[in-house]
């Protein structure tokens, strides 16, 4: 008789433990997602009443999805993202790995200072960073353009047609290398020292140790940072929005999220924006899953 309630309590305990997480998930993820999906099949249409009529929310089916999928500008946004990502993702990961390996190298001096110095840009809020770089890009305030002009080479077209992608990618790289470096560095510190000793006994050079031992063993961290960088790229919004007033190169729909923001708040079409958001989210999930699947075996195969 006394054993029953205890067993009962035990079977209830897991649910109690998981409840806070489930509640938060429902409140801040599931319900908003469902609401976004609901909104995406609605539309603001004119009904009678008032001087000019009034726009009211009605069911419009898949109209918003059709409009999004037939909007060339939405896809052009992805094209620009791809170009931007091609510059920023490899650079971010490459530099982060390089710095992490350098910091991990036994002979490196001033490690603590370097680590902090590389990490600090990550602590600068994105908008502040964009404004800061924006001033360094604008012809009449740019110290770089000042130098080239003094040398008679003319100003550097940071915000011109060719310069805008590297200029934007630079802001992202500058801001995120530190964070990614810390992840990779932490992973490097977790590698048992015996492996290095064994390698050295076998006659491996520092370069070979880095290439043959360290990099393969931090591959999971590289995949993780790569995934973050990819998702971060799909969500690029702050930097181009902040630089937009400074250049005609960046339109209001330059990247997909800017397009969504414009439709939602400038053009007052929240349903259309919701449909685009749902598509963007589904696409992000798809890419994430594919990326994980492709890299999983390679990266995690030996670790499990």
């Amino acid at each position: 008789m006394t054993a029953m309630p205890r067993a009962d309590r035990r079977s209830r305990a897991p649910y109690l433990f998981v409840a806070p997480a489930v509640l938060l998930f429902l409140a801040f993820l599931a319900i908003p997602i469902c609401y976004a999906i609901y909104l995406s099949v609605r539309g603001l249409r004119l009904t009678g009443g008032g001087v000019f009529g009034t726009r009211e929310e009605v069911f419009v089916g898949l109209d918003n999805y059709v409009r999004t999928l037939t909007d060339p500008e939405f896809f052009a946004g992805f094209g620009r993202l791809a170009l931007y990502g091609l510059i920023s993702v490899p650079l971010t990961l490459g530099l982060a790995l390089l710095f992490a390996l350098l910091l991990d190298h036994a002979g490196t001096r001033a490690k603590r200072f370097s680590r902090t110095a590389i990490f600090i840009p990550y602590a600068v809020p994105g908008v502040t960073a964009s404004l800061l770089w924006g001033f360094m890009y604008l012809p009449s305030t740019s110290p770089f353009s000042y130098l080239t002009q003094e040398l008679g080479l003319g100003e550097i077209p940071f915000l011109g047609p060719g310069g805008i992608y590297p200029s934007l990618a630079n802001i992202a790289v500058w801001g995120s290398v530190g964070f990614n470096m810390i992840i990779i560095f932490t992973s490097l510190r977790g590698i048992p020292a015996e492996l290095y000793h064994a390698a050295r006994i076998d006659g491996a050079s520092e370069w070979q140790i880095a290439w043959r031992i360290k990099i393969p063993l931090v591959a999971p961290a590289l995949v993780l940072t790569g995934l973050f960088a990819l998702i971060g790229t799909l969500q690029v919004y702050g930097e181009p929005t902040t630089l937009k007033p400074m250049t005609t190169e960046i339109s209001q729909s330059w990247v997909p999220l800017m397009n969504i923001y414009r439709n939602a708040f400038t053009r007052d079409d929240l349903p259309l924006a919701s449909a685009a958001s749902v598509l963007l989210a589904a696409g992000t999930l798809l890419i994430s899953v594919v990326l994980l699947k492709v890299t999983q075996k390679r990266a995690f195969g030996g670790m499990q």
Partner: protein
Amino acid sequence: MRITRLGGSIAVLGMTAVLAACSSGTPGSTDTPTANTGPVALEFWCWGTSQKAKVEAFNKAHPNVQVNHTDVGGDRDTAAKLLTANRAGNAPDAACLEYETLPSMIVAGALADISAHTGDVKDAFSPEVWDLTSFDGAVYGVPQDVGPMVLVYNKKRFQELKIEPPATWQDFAKVAADVRKKDPEAYLTTFAPAEFGNFAGLAQQAGASWWQVQDQTWTVGIADQTSHEVADYWQGLIDKDLVKAQPLLTPEWNNQLNKGKILAWPSALWAPGVLYGVAEKQAGDWAIAPLPQWKEGDDRVAFQGGSALTVTKTSKNAAAAATFAKWMNTDKAAYDLQIEMGEYPASLAGQQAAGDSPPPKLTANQKDYWDVATKAAQRTIPHISWGPNVSTAKSAYEDAVSAALRDRTPLRDALTKTHNLVVEDMKTTGFKVTGP
């Protein structure tokens, strides 16, 4: 491991959706308490430098109504936030909006008809100005400030270069060429891709009418013959490098302005206040002249910008909010504060008072400032109507013109593109639109 990781990516997906779909979190106004507990509390959104002092003066004069003022950003931001707050049911009681934004707000069902309260102030405004906020007998706001268009120019630099403010747009082109010759680093003015209201004003001056409505049937004229000609005019100036195509009021632009490399700005009477904010050092150097005309001898100009104080549909204290809107725009204390900040009041008494006051700081040395201003204000084009989707038009215009300037394609095509998008948007929403 697998499941955990998949869960992680679902969570990431969730964040994407939430980030993309949710509003960026407009802090809503608190619910207005009902009147029986002490003074009526009103929430009020408005931008502009004179608002804080005007609201304080109102609160002092009205112990029974206390207004809490929040600056949520300019017209674009206010309009976007007002729509969101309106749907969320926590809109403020009163808000400032530019005249061109009013129809879209009316169509969104965000504004209250306050014609029952405005009978006593109608005559305080000229009919052209009153027309800006009244539609078929319904009144959706009290006019606050108006922006008759004028040419604002750096008189000191003009004198240095020995040039005179042009009377016609043909002269304007000649002066622009003159400036380039005399100072190769300087431009007479710039052409900004985001200045929808400015271009609309210039086209209206030439005779264009971008929207007309009769019995709920609309005619859109954004790409009409006249507008195309105005676009061609600016195209010519840009192509010959007589005018620089560049966004306005950016750090870059402000820097050029402060260096005396941008000499003039065809804009409106609120411009001296704006320029003073970015080029304080040039106070006294500037002056205003009548806006150049398309035909010699004409003197008609359009309004650019200017705002009205509106009452929202969801306000529980519409009567008090209407009283507030009226006081803010007709009381002497209020318009004196406006004038002090360089705004041009919408009310006749306010305009009279402005004429008797010293000119704004930027143009402090111009003796006939108010003569020029009053003449412009008296000769504004009547019956300008704006469309029900001006915000869409603005954003379409900005993108099309930016692209045209970037890719060096004709500006007139950008107008056509804007026009088509505006008409398509109106049709999607369900408006009856005639013509192309």
